């Protein structure tokens, strides 16, 4: 417990472990707050990460925290610059595990080209947290002329999905206690700001962007349809799903449309620019499997409809409650 009490041991933890891994000039000053120079329209976001288990195929809670925050900023068209990280550590977390997570945070923030400029650590009694919780905040600058929002989708826009759905949710589920099934699948957890920057360079007419995290693609599309007061029509056949994800979903009675992603985005793009944006996306490592999956329409505001593989149509609703695996 002594590591959390603010005394000498806490200093040691901060200086050795955290600064060692995350050092940059702004953080190294160790003042009570970071002082930043920014001019322009700011995007500001916060999120908390409580994923279980903290290490999963393709990522860990640290990478997830950086990517999640960076992606939230990127989805409003902002260039992510600065992050804060606050750790709530359950007593007994192994120093090696913490070091692994910090190394992963450093690698991911370097990849995303953002700086961790302020942070905090608390250690709580065993049972008061589950190994490690991370809270973040993020600041980004929105370039002039960029106006991207979940309420800006317009009839006629093409719906572009950046890749396969469900990878993260199934990768994490495969590691849960009592449900371990083996799969070669990894989480898609990735920072998408580079991809978004290239998309914005390709077109000024990207109207809405969002990353379909919890609740999956279905929930994200419903949010955009409701906010923009439009309907969205998608085609089941156009939505890429990995065989491993489809197999696991069939087995567990889940629908990939509702399974979480951590490295995917959907974009509503003016029809004339859709092909250009798509081509640019496919050149980026995180957009190789991008495809146009549907279209925005004016009728029935708030509704998402999917053309099924066999040629019928059905409503795609928001996720309601937690999906629970079935009996038979």
């Amino acid at each position: 417990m002594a590591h959390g009490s603010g005394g000498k041991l806490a200093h040691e933890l901060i200086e050795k472990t955290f600064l060692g891994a995350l050092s940059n000039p702004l953080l190294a000053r160790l003042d009570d707050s970071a002082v930043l120079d920014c001019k322009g329209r700011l995007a500001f976001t916060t999120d908390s990460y409580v994923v279980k288990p903290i290490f999963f195929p393709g990522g860990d809670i640290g990478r997830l925290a950086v990517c999640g925050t960076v992606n939230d900023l990127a989805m409003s068209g902002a260039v992510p610059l600065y992050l804060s990280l606050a750790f709530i550590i359950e007593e007994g977390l192994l120093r090696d595990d913490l070091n692994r997570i910090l190394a992963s945070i450093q690698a991911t923030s370097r990849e995303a080209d953002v700086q961790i400029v302020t942070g905090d650590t608390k250690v709580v009694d065993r049972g008061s947290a589950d190994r490690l919780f991370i809270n973040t905040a993020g600041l980004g600058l929105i370039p002039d002329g960029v106006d991207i929002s979940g309420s800006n989708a317009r009839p006629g826009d093409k719906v572009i999905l950046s890749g396969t759905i469900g990878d993260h949710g199934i990768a994490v589920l495969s590691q849960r206690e009592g449900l371990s099934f083996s799969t070669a699948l990894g989480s898609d957890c990735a920072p998408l700001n580079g991809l978004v920057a290239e998309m914005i360079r390709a077109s000024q007419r990207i109207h809405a962007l969002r990353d379909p995290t919890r609740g999956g693609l279905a929930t994200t599309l419903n949010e955009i349809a409701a906010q923009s007061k439009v309907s969205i029509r998608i085609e089941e056949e156009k939505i890429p799903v990995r065989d491993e994800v489809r197999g696991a979903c069939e087995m567990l009675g889940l629908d990939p449309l509702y399974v979480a992603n951590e490295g995917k985005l959907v974009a509503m793009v003016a029809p004339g620019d859709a092909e250009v944006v798509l081509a640019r996306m496919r050149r980026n490592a995180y957009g190789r499997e991008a495809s146009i999956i549907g279209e925005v329409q004016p009728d029935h505001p708030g509704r998402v409809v999917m053309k099924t593989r066999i040629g019928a149509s059905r409503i795609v609703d928001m996720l309601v409650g937690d999906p629970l695996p079935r009996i038979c």
Partner: protein
Amino acid sequence: MKFVDEFRSSELAQRLVHSIRHHSTRRARFMEFCGGHTVTIMKHGIRQLLPSTIEMLSGPGCPVCVTDNADLDKAIALARVPRVILTTFGDMLKVPGSRASLQEARAAGADVRIVYSTLDALQIARDNPARPVVFLGIGFETTAPTVAASVLQADQEGVHNYHVLSLHKLCPPVIKTLLDSGEVRLHGLICPGHVSAVIGSNAWEFISRDYGIPCVVSGFEPLDVLQCVHMLVSQVERSESRVEIAYRRGVRPEGNRRALELMDRVFEACPARWRGMGSVPATGLRFREAYRRFDAESAFDFDPGPTLEPKGCICGEVLRAVRTPRDCQLFGKACTPASPVGPCMVSSEGSCAAYYLYGGVE
């Protein structure tokens, strides 16, 4: 062969739909017995593709849905017995009993754990030798053999703290009861695929023979169901009634002898309460004398309290196929998957949930 994509091909589906439309001239009412089929039909929009001559009814084949409130209350009361660990499949968790659900009991301190197989439940019993572990045995002939296997395994290993609340139900005799009631007239039955994998397609012979109703066993992919409807239409048009299998990769006429044997060694038929139908003779399974010590019902003292039925809920009638979810005044208003009133809105295989989630765009 991936066993998924092949059965969702849009080209083959179009061909089947075209052929069904071409052949169907007589009005026919088909029932899909199984909730899994209801979900396939709604999720892929199959009804929209069928000609107006064909009417589809959803049957009582959702084990969660047909479980009576009195039995649910027993499970919840058992979960509240001090030191008991109640293990259950996930879909039972949110089903409201007379006063609470298992989820609410868990929030109030009961030790309720979700398992994915009866063997997981048995493992929990091995890991906690000082605590009684109860498995909530809900399901049809598909599930019962796996429960029987866990009991035999526990018996062999001498795991004395493992118990089962057997609320299992049998499918063929309940169909007979439905047909005998005269409430629904059917021209074809889509027989459950997984149940038939265990009991065999021969188990449905009496329906085609005694009631003159064509029966086709179907799998759960959209092409399986379309193929099944196609076969039913062919029989109707030729005025035939036979049992056929449209799910040969899973079902044989004689079924799975080994599974049937296990089930028969541990259980015997008994009356069972069905939601909306009351007590139906020989449609349940109870422990045979030799294994009765595994029976949770006799192993513990518990009081499920008086049974209450939710006001306005028509799940019972929906399960008997005399009304549809949309006939219910609670549907989509007071009763949604987020705050369900009746079980058909909770279970992933419930008709109400399927109608609500996949709504259908006509």
